[in-house]
């Protein structure tokens, strides 16, 4: 019997709460709504970034692009995986993106055929991505993984590198048990002893190394012809309409690469807050990756120059061939497709500021 009055009181309180929430929402919307019209005249550049340490985060954190392009509204959106960036490109929601070579190889192949081009090499995976086995298993080389349980984030560059490492050791994916786990979850599974080995990246990788044996790192796979890269891509339509913006973007990305080489402390200080790490941790992560110099970037080994697309096209094709063998895409396109997929306009002179 006594429940009725309480319920009514509860209801009234709820109404009051709802009214309060509405008022709050109105306040929150107010200033933002007021700010929009003054930007309305400026065209927007939409960039997708990911929280892996690279010059892209230096550019974002220091607002270099905003400085260099004051007549544009710059919109940065954080993504967690290359697959999501691919989807956003297909939807026509992005102009630039920072994305791994494995998803780019998928994006440039059928059935996706995403109209974007590779305009920059942000980094090359070195010791920042590696395959580690738990010490307790006693495994010391990749061949010893036969029949074991290995975790990696499916569809990532680490997944690609793991399959390449297994193949190199004479094993196929069916000789081991592959488990799809994101870095954090793979750490949990590792600590519980649910997996024997993990192929993942920093910072999780450093935690695994504490009680694990490193079997192979992406640096060795790169020298064996299976490099994994983080690339900067630009939508083809955008590059045709605004070549000047692409030039500016390449210049600031080059400036960030130079800073990583010349002043790693400043670079780590900018990257640290973007990846939620301390500057020391960020510096350590930067040290383990491979960051090209301006000369390397435009050499035949990587992007190449205007009219002479470089070896990144071969890398992407070999990644696509690999995905086709794994039945992840129907077939790998010809090399020409990937050469057309490189945006080398004006290289190398355009990078000189």
């Amino acid at each position, binding site marked *: 019997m006594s429940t009725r009055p309480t319920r009514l009181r509860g209801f009234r309180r709820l109404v009051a709460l709802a009214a309060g929430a509405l008022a709050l929402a109105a306040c929150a919307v107010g200033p933002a709504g007021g700010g929009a019209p003054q930007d309305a005249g400026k065209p927007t550049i939409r960039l997708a970034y990911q929280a892996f340490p690279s010059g892209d985060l230096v550019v974002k954190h220091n607002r270099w692009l905003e400085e260099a392009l004051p007549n544009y509204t710059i919109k940065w959106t954080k993504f967690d995986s290359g*697959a999501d960036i691919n989807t956003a490109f297909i939807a026509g929601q992005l102009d630039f993106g920072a994305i791994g070579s494995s998803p780019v190889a998928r994006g440039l192949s059928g059935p996706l055929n995403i109209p974007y081009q590779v305009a920059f090499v942000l980094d090359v995976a070195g010791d920042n991505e590696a395959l580690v086995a738990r010490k307790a298993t006693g495994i010391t080389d990749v061949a010893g993984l036969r029949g074991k349980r290995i975790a990696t984030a499916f569809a990532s560059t680490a997944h690609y590198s793991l399959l390449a490492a297994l193949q190199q050791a004479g094993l196929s994916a069916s000789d081991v048990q592959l488990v799809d786990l994101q870095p954090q979850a793979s750490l949990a*599974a590792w600590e519980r002893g649910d997996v024997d080995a993990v192929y993942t990246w920093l910072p999780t990788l450093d935690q695994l190394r504490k009680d694990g044996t490193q079997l192979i790192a992406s640096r060795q796979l790169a020298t064996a012809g299976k490099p994994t890269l983080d690339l900067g891509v630009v939508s083809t339509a955008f590059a045709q309409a605004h070549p000047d913006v692409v030039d500016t973007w390449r210049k600031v990305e080059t400036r960030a690469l130079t800073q990583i080489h010349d002043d790693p402390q400043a670079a780590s200080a900018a990257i640290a807050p973007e990846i939620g790490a301390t500057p020391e941790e960020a510096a350590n992560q930067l040290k383990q990756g491979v960051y090209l110099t301006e000369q390397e970037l435009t050499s035949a080994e990587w992007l190449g120059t205007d009219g002479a697309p470089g070896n990144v096209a071969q890398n992407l094709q070999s990644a696509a061939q690999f995905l086709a063998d794994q039945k992840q895409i129907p077939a790998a396109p010809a090399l020409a497709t990937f050469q057309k997929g490189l945006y080398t306009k004006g290289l190398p002179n355009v990078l000189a500021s």
Partner: protein
Amino acid sequence: MRAVLLPLVSLLVFLVLWQLAAASGAWNETFVPYPSTVWRAFLDVSTTHDGTRGYQGYLLWEHLYMTLRRVLGGVVVGVLVGVLVGLLMGTVGWVRRVLEPWLTFLRALPPLAYFFLLVIWLGIDEAPKITLLALAAFPPAAVATTAAVAAAPISLIEAARALGAGRSQVVRDVIVPAALPETFTGVRLAVGIAYSSVVAAELFNGIPGIGGMVKDASNYNNTPVVLVGIAAIGISGLVIDGLLRAVERRTVPWRGRA
């Protein structure tokens, strides 16, 4: 006749609209693939072809079977505990006051929010998946049972008491039969909610499993396989609900005639 014809016509209209949408070219094929492409994907994941077995080494029915097993395990645990707790909450006032906030708290949580904790505590095999499904099925079953028990007609309870029935007799002979129809609705709801959590439950190490298949295919922007998985989840969900309704009609024929 009409009962069969109307759903069939709606299905046909849907397929025609779909084909038109795909053929219009307004959307990229990754977003709206042709019905024929999805049909081919269905055949691919259901058979062994050029040396590849189904999707990621398992056929469609094997993915579905693993998921159904997990859902069954989770739902049985979740519903059993849920109905018992609901019965207790409905009959004993202080239990209800103690448990209700906890139940509401749990009900408000999206499974994705706590799944990571389950992985840390229970590992990456079956335990966290079944626990997640049980946690998803538990609140609706408990809430529906509580409400159903509380709504048992007072006149009947008082009549039974007047005839000399004890507390346990009242519960067994009056409250439970009166609450059963509503409880069944809660069970159906619980199964539905558990079923809609399968993709979350199979987020980590979900293959074989239909949710794991959908998640993996979407990682590769493989829309046809995603649609096949969604259709499999939806259709099996319809079948399960149909079965539950049949069971309900059999066991609670007095529904609506209280």
